[in-house]
């Protein structure tokens, strides 16, 4: 079946430091853009190998940190331009789908009322809207194992707190605008906390150390307090 010839965001390569460039794929969150970022990352990794020191995909960008003693800036830019000229949307390879249990409630999600007020709905509707819906992992970052997922429905897209909380418990399920995520470790954070997941998202001794990776699809399933505790969750 032919792909619809929709508008395509221009790729631009911008300097990001003495040995880094940022590749931009437009400025919006969408599955198409996410696919292009991911495919570009795998092309760059396989072509440039050890010349690339860090490769960090995000929603619509890809950071490339390179070894300046192995590859010059000009050569890198030319190589990237050639590599990325024909990257199309569309998923290659298999897609992982994961169900993650979440105990939603004010005991674990102090911001449930805030998110409800944002959408002028009640907290039961917040839970119903957030769960049983497929999210895509767009980026890993901020902290080890932290997965940036999107997109939450507009009614839930409450902005982050003006000043972050000092301590967010591990496993906290959170919303910031159209993004949702789980905090893998205790950390400070400004996102709206609506529940808690008992599953370990980061383990330094496991391979791979993170449960999630970009491209994964995640569905949150609401569980009871008892189920949360029996799955090893901590209150």
């Amino acid at each position: 079946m032919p792909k619809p010839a929709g508008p395509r965001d221009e790729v631009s390569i911008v300097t990001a430091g003495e040995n880094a460039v940022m590749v931009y794929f437009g400025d919006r969150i969408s599955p198409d853009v996410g696919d292009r970022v991911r495919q570009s990352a795998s092309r760059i990794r396989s072509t440039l190998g050890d010349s690339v020191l860090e490769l960090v995909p995000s929603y619509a960008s890809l950071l490339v940190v390179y070894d300046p003693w192995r590859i010059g800036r000009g050569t890198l830019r030319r190589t990237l331009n050639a590599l990325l000229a024909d990257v199309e949307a569309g998923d290659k390879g298999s897609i992982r789908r994961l169900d993650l249990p979440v105990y939603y409630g004010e005991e674990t999600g102090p911001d449930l009322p805030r998110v409800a007020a944002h959408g002028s709905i009640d907290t039961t509707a917040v839970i119903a809207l957030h769960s049983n819906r497929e999210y895509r992992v767009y980026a890993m970052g901020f902290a080890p194992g932290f997965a940036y997922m999107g997109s939450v429905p507009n009614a839930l897209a409450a902005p982050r707190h003006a000043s972050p909380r000092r301590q967010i418990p591990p496993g906290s399920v959170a919303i910031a605008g159209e993004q949702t995520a789980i905090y893998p470790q205790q950390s400070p954070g400004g996102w709206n906390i609506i529940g808690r997941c008992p599953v370990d998202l980061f383990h330094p001794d496991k391979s791979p150390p993170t449960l999630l990776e970009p491209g994964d699809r995640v569905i949150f399933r609401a569980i009871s307090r008892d189920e949360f505790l029996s799955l090893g969750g901590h209150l």
Partner: protein
Amino acid sequence: MRSAASASAPGFLEVIAPGPQSLLQDSGRRGQWHLGITSAGPMDRLSFDWANRLAGNPPGLTALEVTFGGLRMVAHHSVQLVVTGPQAPITVNQRPASQWQLLALKPGDRIDIGYTREGCRLYVAVPGGFHATSAFGSSSTVVREGLGGLDGRPLLSGDRLKVANEHRHRSFFLPLELRPVYAPGDGAALRVIPCLQARILGRSWRRKFFAARYRVASESDRMGIRLEGEPLDHGIARLLSEAVTPGAIQITPDGQPIIMMRDHQTIGGYPKLGTLLSLDCDRLAQYPSGAEVCFIPITPGRALALLRQTKRRFETASPIALAW
């Protein structure tokens, strides 16, 4: 690695007082940002590199980063060590001892590293390096992530730091003129490659930033150095979160710059107007709170030339050999 002969078993240094924050650091983690794991490594890489060099080590072995000073240790076997970084009062058994050269401690000797007034971070290296837990290919401690060093935490009183039982037969001393200059002086100029969101922010905004003077704020740490000055109203409402590198100059919603350092978050959503030259991240890491700084723009080509020059200078500098 453990040797069977007890004479060459690894010895240790016992921490009597750790100071405000002393951390085991090697040269840092590589290739882990995509998991959300930060760079880590020494805040001032040049002083760290010199510490290993003067200890007779290959580059990047695990050393101690001592913030401000205040570290006291007792040797439980014969051990050599070197302290680099800004000038600090150092004594062995209460007798003054030198920085920038390998010192020999006998069993029972006590070393006191006092507080520095010239900078912020001292480095202590031993021949063969300190023993530390490796995580993701590096022993560097990141307290926030709980990785590296001693279970991911700073040194505590009573810690026994295992050191390799390697000894050097000569000591080398780095003369003053070859050492880094630590004091910021009267308004240090830090070199910046304007990039990333600089274009969106526009020309007048850029002019303002490069004309401004800032002070290093006290809430600075290994994650980022906060600066205070005339607030810059950038008017960028929303930026999609994207990867963040060390040296990135983020502008917070209240219009103040934060320079990302070794324990930077790997992804963030604040607009950035450029990236500091890595050599100047090393300098900035030594500036105490209240120090005045300003910024000057440089091109990526100039940045690379400066990196090459500094690398060559380090490789060709010859410490002076001393007789024991």
